[in-house]
Structures are given as C-alpha cells and as structure tokens.
C-alpha cells in the first residue's frame, strides 16, 4: 500500500498523524537487519562498560550528574557565570565520600571500595536519604554546556530518585548506552549512503565503532559526549544521503533538527557547523541544478529549523536563567587574552595534534602528542585518564592504526576517479573534521593560557566516528575482493580484542 493512497481517504485530523506514523514505520522497516544487529552490539557493549566502570569514574561524571540533578530538582540549568561557586547536593556528596571518589580518581594505585565494611559505610551514608535539593549543579566542566543531554536524562534520574543516587546514576548510564546504540546505527546507515559498493563492509565499519573501547567507556557513563556522538553521526548520515540522493525538504528539516540537537548538546558541536552548512549549500545547488537564490531555499529551511531551538535556548539563558547566552565564555571556555597570539595559537595546535617542533616553546608535555595523546587515548586510556596499558600496547596499536590508514589510502588512490567526482562531498567532510579539530584546539589553547594545562582527550574527536568507520571500510577493500573478508574480520577481531582487554584492564585497576 502506498503512502499517498493511505492518506487520501481517512477523516481529516487523523490523516497527517497516520501518514507521519506510517512514514516513520516505513523508514524503520527499510533499515537493514544488519544495522539493527550492529546497533544492538553497540548498546550491549556500552551497557557492559556501564557495569564495569565504578560509579563516578567516567571523566567529569560527578559534574554531569550534578547538572541533571539541578535540572530535575530546580527546573533550570546551573548558573554559568564566573562568580558561581560549586555546591554538590548532600545526596551526591554522601555517595562521593562513601565511594572515596576523590582519592580513587587520578590515582591508578587506589582501587574502588573493596571491603564489605566500606560498602556498609556507604550504605549507611545513603540510608539517611540526604537532600537532593541543596546542590546547585555548578561545575567547571558541566555548567557551560547546553541543557539538551541533561534534560533527556531527567526521567532516568527521577526514576532512580526513589532510591539512592547510585540507582539514578546507573539508569542514566543505561540511557547513555542506548545513545551509543543509536550512534552505531547512524554510522552503519552513513556507510550505506557514503560507500554503497560492498554492503558487507558496512558491518565491519559499524562493528569497528561498536567495539571501540573508549567509545563504549564514554557512552557507558553519564557524559553529554554520548548524545554528541549520536547527533554528529546522524548529521553525517543526512549529508551523505543528500550527496547520494539529493537534498529534499524533509532531509533539510532533519539536518536542521540535528544541527539544533548538536548545538543544544555540547559546545564542541560548533566545530562541525561550518562544514555542515557548506554541505547543505552545495546540496541545495545540486538539487536545483546550479547556483541560484532558489538553491538556497532548502539550506535556509535547515538553518531556520536549527536556529529556532538555538535562539530559544539563548533567550531562556538570558531571560529566564540568568546565564551566559551560550555558555561559550564560561567555565573551561572562559576566554583568556593574556599572552594569546595567532602565531602562539597555531604553534600550540601543531604541538597538540602532531608533535613539538624543536626550537619552539614546549606547550604540551608530550613530545609527540599524536602518538602519546591521541593514538594512546584511542587504543585505551580509562578512568580519569589514569588507567593505561603498558607502553608496548600503544606501540602495537599505533602500528595497527598506521596499517589501517595506509590500506585506506591505497583504496582511495585506486578509486581516485570516483574520489575526484565526489570531491565536494569529501571537502565537506574534511571541513567538518577540520572545524572540530580547530574548536577543540582553541579550547585547549585557551585552557593552557589560563592554567598552563590544556591538552586533549581522544573522545573529543569522536563526533568524527562516522569518518573513522569509513576509513575502516576503505581499508577492508584495499587488497581486492578476495582479501576483503580476511581484512574485515581481522579489523573486527582486533577491535574486539582491544575492547575486552580494556575491560580487563579497568577491572584490574579498580577491583583487584
């Protein structure tokens, strides 16, 4: 039965809902079973991580929990001005003290609570039902961020609030794990649109993300990155679909909604914006057969859809909540002009992403940050960046990643005619990736100016997981059809091994 036939006869008022429902059902039905399986694998892996990692040992988890608690109890996000001083609720404080969180975090030799006496003491603290209403949610990491992820976590928090904060936290972690599954689903569908030639390799790329251990660790915790990864992957999907099938009005609306969701989730999403908008403009021109004012109609629709919620949030920040309009100048994002310069900033970015250039001022402790921060983080660096493998594991991991990159390069060179034809699309993805690198780098430079700290964590680049999966797919195809299954299975097995050993590493660190 066609959709048009179904919507032509029902009574007015009912028809649009049925039509929309059927369209949605139709869209869901068209998603291949393999995509659902990969999504389920991703979600299950994230749930496993949520059970393995001790409470509040995912980076900044106490801050993000406090933000949700503030939204749930006070109905507004925390203040984000410089004068705001953090006040943790008695309930969360009881859990943090009972768990010894501050002593465990950053100290890889201090395990989580390990004795029945410590457990009994924790339960005694929580049994008194300390107040959940006396905190303010203010934190350096959480308060500058927009409220969407935290608002979506409120129901999980509320259900858990009938018991202890530990129940709330676990339910919130499960919601994040669900978002992890959504991310993998979107990555699979992105691969289907962007690299349609060999359907089996989509599974390789999606499972490469589903088993990526740092992804599982972060999406198994309470952290807005979980929603950021999902919205970014979905945005890549929309753009890839547009490049393959053309930009329809519906796709423009979906893209705009995702941009809005991303902007309302985490400030880092702004890095993807220039590339995404450029992509929509290119798609608009393509769908109209050339550059014209009419070509801007659908990109304008996307921009409008994105702008409305964003402007609403800015107005709410200013008029209702007395917050900084976007949060982009507060907390860890508070700008510093002391000592800032373009040359200094560029030098910092080179050191942050590549290596220290001899003869220049050293701003990053690691001499080769690409190897010692980004690759190391990708292979596995857990807890509050305090739980690491032995160094040979990272050397091995860097070698494997290097081989994968080389194989993907071979694929690209072989398909250079296609790549040339799809150059605008590739440039859009490259602009999105570059934009994210710049935003993360500038934030880090800003932090370095203020605290001589800065640095980066690999998870900041995970909004680009869809592109990582594309690299895996290209690598799988590098050696021709005969070797495709061998390379594909090897990629998934290696990623799975990294995931399982990472989980064992975390278990040994906290519970041995």
């Amino acid at each position, binding site marked *: 039965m066609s959709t048009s036939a179904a919507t032509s006869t029902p009574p007015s008022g009912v028809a649009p809902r049925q039509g929309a429902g059927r369209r949605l059902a139709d869209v869901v039905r068209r998603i291949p079973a*393999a995509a659902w*399986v*990969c999504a*389920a*694998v991703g979600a*299950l*892996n994230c*749930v*496993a991580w949520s*059970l*393995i990692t*001790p*409470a509040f040992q995912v980076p900044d988890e106490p801050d993000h929990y406090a933000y949700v608690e503030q939204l749930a109890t006070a109905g507004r996000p925390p203040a984000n001005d410089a004068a705001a001083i953090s006040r943790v609720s008695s309930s969360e404080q009881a859990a943090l003290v*009972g*768990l010894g969180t501050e*002593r465990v975090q950053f*100290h890889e*030799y*201090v*395990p*989580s*609570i*390990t*004795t*029945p006496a*410590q*457990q009994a003491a*924790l339960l005694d603290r929580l049994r008194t039902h300390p107040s959940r209403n006396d905190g303010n949610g203010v934190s350096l990491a959480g308060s500058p961020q927009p409220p969407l992820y935290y608002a979506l976590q409120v129901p999980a928090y509320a259900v858990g609030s009938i*018991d*202890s904060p*530990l*129940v709330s*936290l*676990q339910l919130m972690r499960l919601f994040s794990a669900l978002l992890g599954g959504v991310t993998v689903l979107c990555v699979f569908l992105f691969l289907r649109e962007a690299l349609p030639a060999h*359907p*089996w390799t989509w*599974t*390789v790329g999606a*499972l490469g993300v*589903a*088993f990526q251990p740092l992804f599982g660790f972060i999406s198994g915790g309470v952290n807005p990155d979980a929603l950021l990864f999902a919205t970014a992957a979905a945005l890549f999907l929309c753009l890839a679909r547009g490049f393959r099938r053309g930009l329809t009005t519906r796709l423009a609306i979906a893209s705009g909604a995702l941009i809005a969701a991303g902007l309302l989730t985490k400030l880092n999403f702004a890095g993807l914006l220039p590339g995404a908008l450029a992509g929509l403009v290119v798609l608009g021109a393509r769908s109209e057969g050339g550059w014209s004012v009419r070509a801007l109609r659908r990109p304008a629709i996307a921009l409008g859809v994105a702008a409305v919620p964003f402007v609403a949030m800015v107005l709410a920040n200013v008029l209702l909540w007395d917050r900084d309009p976007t949060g982009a100048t507060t907390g860890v994002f508070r700008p510093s002009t002391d000592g800032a310069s373009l040359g200094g900033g560029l030098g910092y970015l080179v050191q942050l992403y590549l290596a220290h250039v001899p003869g220049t001022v050293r701003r990053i402790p690691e001499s080769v940050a690409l190897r010692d921060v980004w690759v190391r983080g990708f292979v596995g660096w857990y807890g509050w960046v305090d739980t690491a493998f032995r160094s040979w594991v990272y050397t091995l991991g860097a070698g494997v990643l290097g081989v994968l990159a080389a194989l993907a390069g071979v694929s690209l060179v072989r398909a250079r005619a296609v790549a040339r034809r799809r150059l605008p699309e590739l440039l859009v993805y490259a602009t999105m990736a570059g934009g994210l690198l710049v935003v993360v780098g500038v934030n880090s430079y800003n932090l370095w100016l203020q605290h001589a700290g800065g640095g980066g964590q690999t998870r900041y680049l995970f909004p680009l997981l869809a592109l990582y999966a594309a690299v895996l797919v290209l690598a799988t195809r590098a050696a021709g059809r005969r070797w495709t*299954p061998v390379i*594909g*299975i090897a990629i*998934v097995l290696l990623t*799975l091994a990294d*995931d*399982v*050993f990472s*989980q*064992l590493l975390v*278990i*040994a660190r*906290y*519970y*041995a």
Partner: protein
Amino acid sequence: MAATLTRAVPVRTGTNAVLPVEALGGTVGRIEVCQDDELIPAGTGAVRVWARTTGRPGPALALVATDGRATIGRGTRAAGWSGKTATIPLRPVNHAERSARICVTVGASSSVTLAGESSDGPNAETPATAAGAELRGRLRIEYLTPVHHSWWSQLGTIARRMGFGRAPAGGGIAFAAALLVLAAASLGLWQLVRGER
C-alpha cells in the same frame, strides 16, 4: 586471554590509605625510615613501599615490623631494583591483622625518593621518621599476599568487589557484565560471518 588470566600477579591484602602524591624526601647514605600506626592485614607476606629510584639501581632494603617490643616479621630486598616501588617479602606470613611499626633500612649504594602524603591538618596521623627526624608526612605502604596468584584464581574476589559501590549491588554484576560482553561479541561475529556468506 588465557595467558592473561593464568598469569600470576601480586595481590593486595590492604594499604595504609596514604596517597603517594608528594615527595617526602630523598635518602643520602644508609638510613632507617620508620612509620608508626600501621595495620598489617591478615594474610600479608610482602610489603610494597613507595620509594622511587633516582636513575641508578635501587639500594638494598631491610624491613622490620614490630608490635611494641615484639617483632612481627622481617624481610630483605637485594640491591638492583628499579621503578616507583619496592616490594619486600615479610616473614613469617601474618595470619591475623596486627597493628605495627614498620621500619625500612635503606642501603647506601644509591639514593631513593620516598613518596607519600603530607601530615598537615588537625586529624593528621604521625609522620614517618628518617634517622629519628620527622618527615613532612606519611609513606604509602601496600600489603601483599606472600605468593602471586593468577587472575583466574581471583575471579571470585574481583566479582564480589565489582558488586560494591553501585546499584544494583552484588556479585551478580560481574556475571551480568561478562554475559553482556559475550552476547555483544557473539552477536557481532555472527552478523559478520552471516553477512559475508
């Protein structure tokens, strides 16, 4: 995986809860470092002290644990160790929890830096001493079982500990996590093989 799970590793029986967050001082020549108010857990057969070598192989170490006038145990570690910590066997093995004064005589062949936590504040415990003079804080000490155990043999203990500090609590958490990982791996590999055919 099998190699990892069967590998023998030292197992902690407890710690003195001091964090090695600052240097308490460096040794010069042969010196005795002592710390009161320690609690040696039952089953302890080795003591790990947080003493970092400074480039050269670590000096010989001799440990004596006393409770009042009674000697609870002794142990020595030959020169030549390296890294952030030194593990000294303690004999006889301690079968019941005992309060103790731990003294480590650091040899003169090279210098080490002692790591621990400052004893500032009203509720601070007595700082460690070096040659009778008070250091600025207490030394981190970990207590270990006398023999190494495989991870495999520790699964029960680890599973029990995984159930602490979370909700729902209990050893079933470890089982659930293992089941989820197994399910994810099986499902993923099944899809991979099925799709390839």
